[in-house]
């Protein structure tokens, strides 16, 4: 990692007794695609608003490119935001919307329209400058919001669930475009989302938020294969978090661990580096490429097993009501620490 774009040191934001952000420290590198992932109310959006300057921290320090940002109003920060509801100015046409940032900085009319045209061209909306926001589709408004932020050439771009309102196909297409754009421009993207698939597919690193705290900051691959806490194991992908009595029965220790559903097979443990348990198959859900089997273990805990549907219907697979044996390799198990509950 080269230089630091944004650094949080013990940042908290409290609203009365509610700790929206609670003692968070992160370092985001320059040029990184960094995602903040978490359920609603986990503090990820508040963190973004702290960087943008819409909120001020209760305590702690926020450095943006090495400069203390706490206390600075939004208009004195070298960051720009793409809002969840786009926040395009309805009384201006698209070109004036995009040129707004340059206009308030006193850039001349000719110059700023040229820049705005170029920014619109970058998001493939070059011919739409004369329209009003009301005449654009959701996906187009999204691109306008992007162009309006990027025309200011910020060093950090903040994106607050920008694809939330789009339908699935458009969302996937925009994910690819955003990633390509970020690589081309080389600026830092800080991306807030509650969609773990989105975070995994686009980001260099992801911070997983829960109840105002960060559970884990890691690469998408590590988040999936080596979740640090039960919350991460469960929130990123699906996972079987095994703890307490069942863990005791299987491993002989109460240490919690997780096993991904695709790593479990219907078999007796074959060798010493395999572990397993027994249970009853309760239900089977068909998901197209895969099927998901729900098993109730002897202790009553529910476990999930995912089997690929690549082969035609396999007659050896169990049916609901059958007693089944489950097995997984020892290296598929990830030990978990407690994390935030």
């Amino acid at each position, binding site marked *: 990692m080269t230089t630091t774009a944004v650094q949080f040191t013990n940042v908290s934001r409290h609203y009365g007794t509610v700790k929206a952000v609670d003692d968070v420290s992160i370092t985001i590198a320059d040029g990184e695609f960094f995602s903040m992932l978490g359920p609603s109310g986990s503090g990820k959006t508040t963190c973004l608003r702290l960087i*943008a*300057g*819409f909120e001020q921290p209760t305590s702690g320090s926020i450095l943006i490119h090495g400069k203390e940002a706490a206390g600075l*109003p*939004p*208009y004195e920060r070298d*960051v*720009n*935001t793409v*809002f*969840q*509801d*786009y*926040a*395009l*100015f*309805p*009384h201006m046409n698209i070109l004036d919307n995009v040129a*707004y*940032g340059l*206009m*308030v*900085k006193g850039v001349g009319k000719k110059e700023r329209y040229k820049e705005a045209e170029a920014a619109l061209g970058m998001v493939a909306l070059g011919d739409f400058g004369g329209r*009003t*926001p*009301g005449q654009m589709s959701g996906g187009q*408004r999204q691109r306008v919001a992007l162009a*309006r*932020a990027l025309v*200011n050439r910020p060093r950090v771009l903040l994106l607050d669930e920008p694809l939330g309102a789009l339908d699935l196909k458009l969302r996937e297409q925009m994910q690819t475009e955003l990633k390509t754009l970020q690589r081309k421009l080389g600026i830092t993207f800080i991306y807030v989302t509650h969609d773990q698939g989105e975070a995994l597919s686009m980001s260099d690193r992801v911070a997983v938020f829960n109840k105002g705290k960060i559970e884990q900051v890691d690469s998408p691959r590590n988040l999936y294969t080596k979740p640090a806490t039960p919350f991460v194991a469960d929130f990123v992908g699906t996972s079987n978090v095994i703890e307490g009595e069942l863990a005791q029965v299987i491993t002989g220790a109460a240490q919690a661990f997780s096993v991904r559903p695709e790593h479990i097979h219907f078999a007796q443990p074959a060798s010493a580096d395999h572990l397993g348990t027994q249970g009853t198959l309760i239900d089977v859900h068909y998901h197209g490429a895969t099927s998901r089997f729900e098993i109730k273990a002897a202790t009553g805990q529910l476990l999930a097993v995912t089997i690929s549907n690549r082969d035609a219907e396999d007659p050896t697979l169990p049916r609901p009501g059958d007693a089944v044996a489950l097995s997984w390799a020892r290296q598929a198990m990830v030990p978990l620490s407690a994390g935030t509950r």
Partner: protein
Amino acid sequence: MHSEQKPSLLLKLAAWGGLVFLHFPIFVVVLYAFNTEESAFSFPLQGFTLHWFADAFGRQDMLSAVWLSVKVATMATILAMVLGTLAAGALYRKDFFGKESITLMLILPIALPGIITGIALLSAIKMANLDPNFWTIAIGHATFCVVIVYNNVIARFRRTSFSLIEASMDLGADGWQTFRYVVLPQIATALLAGAILAFALSFDEIIVTTFTAGQERTLPIWLLNQLGRPRDVPITNVVAMMIMLMTAIPIFGAWYLTRGTENTAGASK
């Protein structure tokens, strides 16, 4: 929701009867502004004349009353626009201690009987050792004009997404630029509609004015004094008709301006 049942004849008659009862006197005033007869309201009309219009406009006391009313209404409206917008901006989003009381205090002048506002203002003016003059009338009118502007503007604020303001700040605009380029265009029609209604309200106000005007004569007070002079009744009719027009046109304007704003104000959402 509209009910499916057709209204009964009785209900229709009552509704139309009510409307006629409300507006017939106005019609009479307009009609008799053109009557040739001098004093009495006799029917049918004796003849048609525009003579009284010439008479009315020849009266210097009437013209100066009109001019004073226009000045007062303009000043009261300007005060109301500034204060009403500031109050709406302060109260629409943030919750703070005493917010409900401040809201109530803003809205109260429109609910209070004018006579109470008038007496209160008069004693305040006396306590401050001021002579009633143009400014005391204008400020007296502003007390109830503020709430008109405030109500219009705060309704628009509530329909406007706050992220527009954040977006403007985010793009580098300071508070004043944000107000000038984003907030003002968003509230402009609501502000104008509120201002027009405030102007109309001030223009024909009489009760509060009676207490705050001192020797000054606004148009409504001039009219009231005219009623004691039977010979001037036709002139009074002419002036009454003018007041009606002067207040009706702005009210229609306000209605026209805020007509379809539900659609345009939230168009970006």
